[in-house]
């Protein structure tokens, strides 16, 4: 696919210091990179005039429930000019549970990152307003982690009296 060669060649010539691996599955391309390079990478992808990834579709995280590299933060971005979708993945450790926020690049990521923080507890550095999205502010747990039970923890959410 020509867009794939264009992508890899442009990335190699303009961002030489950044390592990434490419995985292709069912016609979709995922790039796996290190979490400290994410803002530079995204900014280049957005501002380059040929690639022009101007639309951020989704930001989420996966909990692998293993000891090393427990979480993976996943970004989906789309280029309206080339009609091409790309996925970026970064691994995050459980002890060092933070990653830089890309809400300075795309405004869409603002609420999506808040939702990821609410559900997984991954802290986003330099986020303008990081607070919980769905659960009440006083809630102490992170629901989508694999160690949180489906029925919840009794007593963690208050109910009005009859």
């Amino acid at each position: 696919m020509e867009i794939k060669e264009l992508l890899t060649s442009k990335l190699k010539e303009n961002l030489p210091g950044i390592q990434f691996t490419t995985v292709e599955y069912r016609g979709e391309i995922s790039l796996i990179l290190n979490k400290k390079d994410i803002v530079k990478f995204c900014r280049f992808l957005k501002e380059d005039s040929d690639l022009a990834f101007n639309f951020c579709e989704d930001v989420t995280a996966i909990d692998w429930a293993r000891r090393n590299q427990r979480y993976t933060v996943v970004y989906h971005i789309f280029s309206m000019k080339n009609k091409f979708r790309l996925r970026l993945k970064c691994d995050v450790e459980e002890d060092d549970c933070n990653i830089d926020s890309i809400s300075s690049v795309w405004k869409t990521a603002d609420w999506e990152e808040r939702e990821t923080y609410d559900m997984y507890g991954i802290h986003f550095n330099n986020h303008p307003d990081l607070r919980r999205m769905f659960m009440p502010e006083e809630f102490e747990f992170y629901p989508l982690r694999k160690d949180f039970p489906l029925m919840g923890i009794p007593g963690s959410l208050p109910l009005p009296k009859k």
Partner: protein
Amino acid sequence: METIKEHAHSKILEALLADKNITVEDALENEMILNMGPQHPATHGVLRLLLRLDGETIVSCVPELGYLHRGYEKMAENMTYYEFIPHTDRLDYLAPLSNNVAWVLAVEKLTGIEAPPRAQYIRMLICELSRIASHLVAIGALAMDVGALTVFLWTLREREKILDIWDILCGARFTTSYTRIGGVANDIQPEAIAKAEWFINQFDDNLTECEYLLNNNRIFIGRLEGVGVVSGEDAVQLGLTGPTLRGSGIAYDLRRDMPYLFYNDLDFNVITHNEGDCLARYFVRVDECRESAKMVKQIMSKMPKGNILTNSPKKVLPDKVEIYSKMEELIHDFMIVNFGINPPEGEIYSAIENPKGELGFYLVSKGEGHPWKCKIRAPSMVNCQGLPHMIKGRMVSDVVAIVGSIDPVMGEADK
């Protein structure tokens, strides 16, 4: 200051007071914090808006979601792909068949099977009919919020005819769960097709009747024109999709740009209007209804004959008659229902053009019967993100018109 703190949590208060254009020390001095609470006749569902007002003008706005957070993503990790189909009905509950189609398309992409052509055409037909149904409610609710109560009753009357079609098709008016992995549940009946043809033939005139009440109405235009303007670039930055984006001039429609099902074979226009205000979004919806009606006529004329479920025994549930009479089908049914379809390890993202915007499912599979992770990219949540941008500087009564024109559905925004 104490009473305000008890109504708005301290972090929300910080977010509200972060806008430091004017130097005041006490929020009570010049401005008021107004709570448009979750229970309100005009917010579409349970959306809470905290507004900071200077007189009647809005200085800033903080929306608060989560009043309908039902834990869909956690439940999806604990049930098989088939068991999740009824849950997808309740995501965007104004167009349930559209969500069914989105889910089974995502699972079929993950598994690597494809439905037969007749099933694809039936799915396109129900997608377009649910687009008409959803837009009718959106138009009616917007008109009702602005004050034109009659239009709401007329559009609901039209919607009841579509719900009758679905009643014949799959037995349920509303939460249908009609699609299956590998096809659809049952073949479309001739009565349903006849009723759909009758509906499309009389739909244009009825929609024109509703338009007569609104399009040249001074009050309607005065309340919606120039309100809630979003420029095209800002809309793309904020991630808006659907009629909200197309009302600002950007022609982004997934049926045209990343085609799925057989939309390549159909002849349709992508409707855009350039002004970016509430009136433009209303016109986009009305024109999309007409476009969908034309597409339904084309689909019904082009529908091929054939079977409606693929022949893939390990992934697709077999027919009930065969389960009761043959051995292999019985075993396959047992394995699929109890242990799931076990797609290969991997991940996909699949999105369709829902009436509200781009509905996407991101599925990660580890080879088991239930997904390891399921993320629902809900268009209404991202569209609500554009609210603070659109509301700033307007008056309190414009909030109602803006929320009505974005048309969020909290079932999918809160997941």
